[in-house]
C-alpha cells in the first residue's frame, strides 16, 4: 500500500552557537566575522564542534491507518522529527512527505490569546490548526460540550484556571479531522474524570482508522497501542519493527531489563559449586519469549540451570518487583515432585506460571535464583533483576477491570470471586434506617 508518511534520508543539524545565543545582533555578527576565522584556525580549521546533528539519515514509511510508536530518551530527536514532519522546521538534508493533514495533540493551546474569550479562541485556534471557519462553526458545540466550559465560553481565557485552559485547548485539538495525528497519552489533562475523557477520545480517534504517531515514555502504553515502534537514539533509528521487540530492546539497553537472559560463559554465570544459572526468560504458553503480556494471560518465568553437585536438594525461586522496586512476592518450587528430593547432576528447566488476572498493569522485574532449604536457606545461584516484562491491560471486560474505566490502583489486580445475596427489600425486619434515626434526634 502507498504510504501516508514518507521520510527520506532526513538529517537535521543545529548550530550550537545559535541555540545558546538565542538570537544574534549585528554587532555580534560583525565581531564573529573577525574572530571566527581565527578561532577556526586555532581548532585546526574544523567547525564541526559548533554544530550538532539532531537527526541523522532517518528513513521510514508509515502506512495509512497505522499507529506508529516513537521511543527514545529525551533529546534523542523525536520532537525534531515531528517538527520536520509538520514543517515547523526544515531538514538539513532529505525530504518528508505527508499525504494528509496533520494534527497534533502534543502542543495544545497554540495561538490562544489571553485577552480573547473562550469562544474567540476556539475559532482562532481552529484556524491556526488548519480548520476552516465553517468546520469550526459546525463543531463548536461539540468542542465546548467536551471541554465542559459552557458557562465560561464568553469569558476571556486569562481568567481561566490552568486546568480550564488546557481542557479547552485539548478539546479543540481533539476535534481536528486531520488524517495524521501526533499524540501522547501523558497529554490527558485536567482532573481524573476529564483525563479519562481525553484517553477515551484518543482511543476513539485511533479506532477511526486515522494514522497516528504516538510518542510516549510509557512502554506499557506503546505496546498496548502500537504494533510497530521506532526507537531513536542520538538522532538515528536504532530499531524499527514489532513494538514488543523494539520496546524490549529499548528497555534492556536503557534499564537493563530484558525478557531473556542467557549466560554462555560459565565463569560469568551466577552460581556456586552446587548450581549455576544458564538462562532465564519470560515466556507464554506457546513457548515464545515475551516482553509484554496481556493482563488476562498467564505468564511463565523459565529458569534453566545446571546442577553441578549430584545429590543436592534444590528449589528454583523467583522474586517479582514492580518498576519502583517494590517486592510483590517471592515463590519457589514447593511441589511434591522435587521437594526434599536429591537431584542428579545435569541440566534442569523449571517454569513457574503466574496466573492471568493477577498482576497489575506495568513493568515487572523478575529476579531468579536457585536455593536449598536444608539445613539453612542457602543461595546457590542468584540473578537479581534477571528479566522483566510488561503487563498490558487492553481494557477488556473479562479482566479484573470489568466495566471500570480508568486507572485501577493497587500493586496486584487479582480477579476474585464475589458473592452477593439479596436479603429482601430495603427497610425489612431488623434493619434500622440511619436517616430515620438522625431525624428523630
Amino acid at each position, binding site marked *: 500500500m502507498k504510504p*501516508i508518511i514518507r521520510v527520506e534520508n532526513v538529517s537535521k543539524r543545529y548550530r550550537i552557537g545559535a541555540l545558546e545565543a538565542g*538570537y*544574534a545582533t549585528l554587532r555580534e*555578527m560583525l565581531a564573529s566575522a573577525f574572530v571566527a576565522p581565527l578561532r577556526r584556525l586555532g581548532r585546526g580549521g574544523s567547525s564541526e564542534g559548533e554544530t550538532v546533528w539532531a537527526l541523522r539519515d532517518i528513513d521510514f514509511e508509515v502506512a495509512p491507518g497505522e499507529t506508529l510508536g516513537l521511543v527514545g530518551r529525551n533529546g534523542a530527536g523525536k520532537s525534531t522529527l515531528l517538527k520536520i514532519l509538520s514543517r515547523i522546521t526544515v531538514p538539513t538534508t532529505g525530504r518528508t512527505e505527508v499525504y494528509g*493533514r496533520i494534527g497534533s495533540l502534543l502542543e495544545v493551546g*497554540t495561538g490562544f*490569546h489571553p485577552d480573547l474569550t473562550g469562544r474567540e479562541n476556539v475559532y482562532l485556534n481552529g484556524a491556526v490548526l488548519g480548520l476552516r471557519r465553517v468546520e469550526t462553526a459546525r463543531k463548536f458545540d461539540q468542542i465546548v460540550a467536551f471541554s465542559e466550559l459552557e458557562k465560561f465560553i464568553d469569558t476571556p481565557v486569562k481568567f481561566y484556571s490552568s486546568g480550564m485552559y488546557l481542557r479547552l485547548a485539548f478539546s479543540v485539538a481533539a476535534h481536528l479531522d486531520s488524517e495524521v495525528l501526533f499524540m501522547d497519552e501523558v497529554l490527558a489533562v485536567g482532573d481524573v474524570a476529564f483525563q479519562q475523557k481525553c484517553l477515551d477520545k484518543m482511543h476513539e480517534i485511533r479506532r477511526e482508522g486515522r494514522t497516528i504517531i504516538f510518542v510516549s515514555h510509557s512502554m506499557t502504553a506503546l505496546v*498496548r497501542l502500537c504494533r510497530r515502534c521506532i526507537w531513536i537514539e542520538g538522532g538515528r533509528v536504532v530499531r524499527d519493527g514489532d513494538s514488543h521487540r523494539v520496546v524490549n530492546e529499548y528497555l534492556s539497553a536503557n534499564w537493563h531489563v530484558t525478557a531473556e537472559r542467557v549466560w554462555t560463559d560459565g565463569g560469568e554465570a551466577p552460581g556456586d559449586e552446587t548450581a549455576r544459572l544458564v538462562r532465564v526468560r519470560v515466556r507464554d504458553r506457546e513457548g515464545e519469549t515475551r516482553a509484554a503480556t496481556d493482563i488476562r494471560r498467564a505468564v511463565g518465568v523459565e529458569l534453566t540451570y545446571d546442577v553441578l553437585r549430584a545429590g543436592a536438594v534444590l528449589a528454583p525461586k523467583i522474586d517479582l518487583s514492580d518498576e519502583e522496586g517494590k517486592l510483590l512476592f517471592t515463590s519457589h518450587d514447593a511441589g511434591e515432585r522435587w521437594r526434599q528430593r536429591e537431584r542428579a547432576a545435569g541440566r534442569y528447566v523449571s517454569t513457574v506460571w503466574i496466573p492471568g488476572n493477577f498482576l497489575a498493569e506495568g513493568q515487572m522485574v523478575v529476579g531468579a535464583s536457585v536455593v536449598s532449604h536444608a539445613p539453612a536457606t542457602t543461595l546457590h545461584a542468584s540473578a537479581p533483576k534477571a528479566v522483566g516484562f510488561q503487563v498490558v491491560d487492553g*481494557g*477488556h471486560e473479562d479482566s479484573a477491570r470489568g466495566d471500570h474505566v480508568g486507572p485501577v490502583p493497587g500493586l496486584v489486580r487479582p480477579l476474585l470471586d464475589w458473592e452477593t445475596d439479596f436479603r429482601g427489600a430495603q427497610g425489612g425486619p431488623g434493619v434500622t434506617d440511619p436517616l430515620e434515626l438522625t431525624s428523630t434526634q
Partner: protein
Amino acid sequence: MTGERTIAAEDAPAAKTYALPSEPVVANDAQVSLGVRDLRDLWRFRELLYFLTWRDIKVRYKQTVMGASWAIIQPLVMMLVFAVFFGLLRIPTDHTPHLLFFYCGLLPWTFFANAVTQSSVSLVTNSNLITKVYFPRVLIPAATIGACLVDLAVASVILFGLMLYYGFAPGVNLLMLPALVLLTLLLALGLGTWLAALMVKYRDVRHVLPFVFQVWFFLTPIIYPASVVPERWRWVLHLNPMAGVVEGVRASVTGRPFDWGALAFSAAATAAVLACSVYAFNRLERSFADVI
C-alpha cells in the same frame, strides 16, 4: 458494548478508507524552492489571515475605553499640532487649507509607519506560534498590516469630513485614492515582512526603526509641499516612494493634477521592494523556528 473498549494493538481497527491524494499535503524539503506549493498553502490558509487580522484588531482595543477611536486620535492630534505650529511658521501648503493639507499627508504616513513598525516585530511576538505549528509565516506580518488597514479606514472618516467642511467636492481624482492605498499597502507589506524576517535573527531592527522613521518623516512632503523643492531637484525627493503617495493623496482630494512620474517611480520602487522581500523572506523563513 463488548469490544467497544477494546484497545489492544492486536485488534487494530478496520481502517476507514481514506483516499490518498496523489500529491503530498505537507512536504518538507531540504532544497530551497519557491513554487506552486507555496501559493497553494497560502490559499489553503487564507482564512487564517482573516483570523489573525481579526485577532490583532480585537486584542488592540480590548480593555480600552476609547476603542477604535484611537485610530483617529493619533493622526488627528498630529494634524492639530502641525496646524498650530507650522501655521504660525507660514509654511506654504499649495493653497490647500492647512488642516486638510496636513491630514492628507498624515493619513497615509501614519498607516505606513505603523504598518511597517508593527509588522516588523510581529514574527518575534508570535514566536510561540512559529515554533509550534506550521502555516505560511508571511500571514503574521500580513495580518498586522491588515489590522492597520482597518485603522486607516476608520481614520479616513476625518479626511472626508474635512473635505466636506472645506467644500472639496469628490472628483474623478478621488478614484485614484484606493490605488494609492494599495500602493502604500504593498510597500508596507514588502518592507514589513522583510524587516520582520530580519528581526527574527537581528533584534537590532527594533532599535533602528524609530530613528529611521523619524528621518523618513521629514524626507516625505508631509509638513511641506513637494513644490518647495526646486523642479531640478524634485527627482531626489521622489526617490522616496512615500513622497509620490503623499502628493498623490493630496491631488486626489483637491482635484489637482497628479505627478505621474513620481507615482510611476513609487510603483516601481514598491515592486522592487516586494520582489526582494519575497526572495529574502522565503530564504529566511526556513530557519525561523530554529533561531527565533
